[in-house]
């Protein structure tokens, strides 16, 4: 999961190559990698890739601070993901 998300963010949003390779602990918000629009694009990707719906109230800084926090958020929603796949 980390590899997939890290790869997608690196490919789509990292414009400052000094930040590559992207660490799973790199702050995505402070570094400007994620802004309001790239965040939405990421949400669309996560929804399609993992079969979940990211609610408005989940769009919070703590869920998107790093690749790790995105994964933690997704893991917390694992039951939903399994239902979607099953």
């Amino acid at each position, binding site marked *: 999961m980390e590899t997939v998300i890290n790869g997608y963010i690196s490919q*789509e949003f990292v*414009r*400052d*190559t000094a930040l*590559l390779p992207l660490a799973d602990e790199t702050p995505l*918000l*402070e570094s*400007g990698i*994620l*802004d*309001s*629009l790239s*965040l*939405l*694009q990421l949400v669309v990707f996560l929804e399609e890739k993992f079969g979940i719906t990211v609610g*408005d*109230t989940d*769009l*919070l*800084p703590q869920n998107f601070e790093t690749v790790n926090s995105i994964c933690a958020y997704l893991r917390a929603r694992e039951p939903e993901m399994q239902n979607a796949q099953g």
Partner: protein
Amino acid sequence: MAYLLQHLLTETAARTPQRLAIASGDCRLSYEELDRLSTKVARSLRRLGVGRGDRVAILAPKSAAAVAGLYGVLKAGACYVPLDPKAPAQRLSYVVRDSGATVIIADEARLELAATLVTSSGDLAEPGTVLAMGLSGQRGASTAACAQAYYAAIRPWAEVAAESAEPLGQDLAIETDLAYILYTSGSTGTPKGVMISHRNSLTFVEWAAAAAGLTAQDRVCSPAPLHFDLSVFDIFATCLAGACMSVIPDGTTTFPISIAKWLESEHLSVWYSVPSVLTLLACFGSLSNFDLSRLRTVIFAGEVFPPKYLARLMAELPHCRYLNWYGPTETNVCTAFEVAVGDGDGGPVPIGRACANTEVFAVTCDGRRVSSPSEEGELYVRGPALMRGYWGQPAKTQEVLVPHPLGDGHGELVYRTGDLVTLGPEGNYIYLGRRDSMVKIRGYRVELGEVEAAIYRHPAVREAAVVPVTDELLGSRLRAVVAVDDAASLTREALLDHCRRWLPTYMVPDIAEFRETLPRTSTGKVDRTLLARE
């Protein structure tokens, strides 16, 4: 009578000295405090030799200190040049050099960058100066070290604070002098400086305060940074009304819910931004969970608001007024339209009619005035809000400030916008598109030619074309299609890295593709239409 922008501040400070002028995080300044502080800045600048007609750059995010700084520049009789704090050093260096600014007011985080910029700004006999801004303490040792490392004099804020706050006496400037220069994307590869005089700006500011119905009770916010002309509204129109300018903390606009939460806690009453922020707020802001009853007016400008998302916002916040303002930086806002429920149902929301003290008209390609909905033409603007020209570029100025195309015989110059419009049945203008290859990215103007010029600076690039990719929710994004001599010589990362060195983030392409050659039209030009359709 206010004929200079800083008079708005001195008059309001005399009328309501104790009222809150700015709320920026924990920093709150009353009108009296803001007035006194900006006088101190002006005195510091005068001491540095800054006077009428000089340019002073400001390198800082929007904050109480930055606003005091820009009023200080105006009070010194000079004109301010706001720099984009997020732009790469190369571009900032160009702007500093081009504008001839020898003093930069910078916040503490950007002291070194500012020192590099004034140092690199050409053949200065005297070192450039950085005025280190900060309302908190002083910066002793690091300021000295910085001054030593660069050929720049660093004046600490403590020196500003020690200046007298006694008014400076009679103003040297007159209303046709420049108040600020805003740099915007230029099609030939370098940004161009739009010169705005006090009169140009006040024409807009006085109209805008009345059109938005601002009162001293309002709390006004625009998230636009200082170098973006939307910020003229929350800085100066708010001051005219004696209302409070609220500065939204950096990063808040990334999360729609954070914006909604901030609007609620700040008791914000008037909001002015580009539509994309409002689209996100409407779709992902959970607006029903917040009490936004204080928010009474929502104004948007800078690009087209997709009607679907505007309708959604209006349904979420039905108690607000919605105003669509239109106008290039060169003209200030020149038309306005108040949106009623259902206005966007049958197509785009109109840009409306001319603002007070402004005339707009459209001319068809065969030189007739557009007078019915069946005709389309290019929009022209006439009036005291028009810019003085592009800084140092008389030829470029002449391309856009032109004699009246319908020959009214007064000899007055009018501005040709490059925007194509038609006239709706109710007499409102409706925006159709551009005559050239300028696009809007989150409200910022981007000349595709400037992005291409930056890409061409890379030695491995043989051919390049940049085309917009439109997405209703995300707005326009840029796609670069590039042909290189040796496919191994340039990676996507290296290309984007190269772009970042020359361009601000919003101009760096989101998508980069490599090809052996670019498609051509029958006349041998790069076929952008084909690329845009792919």
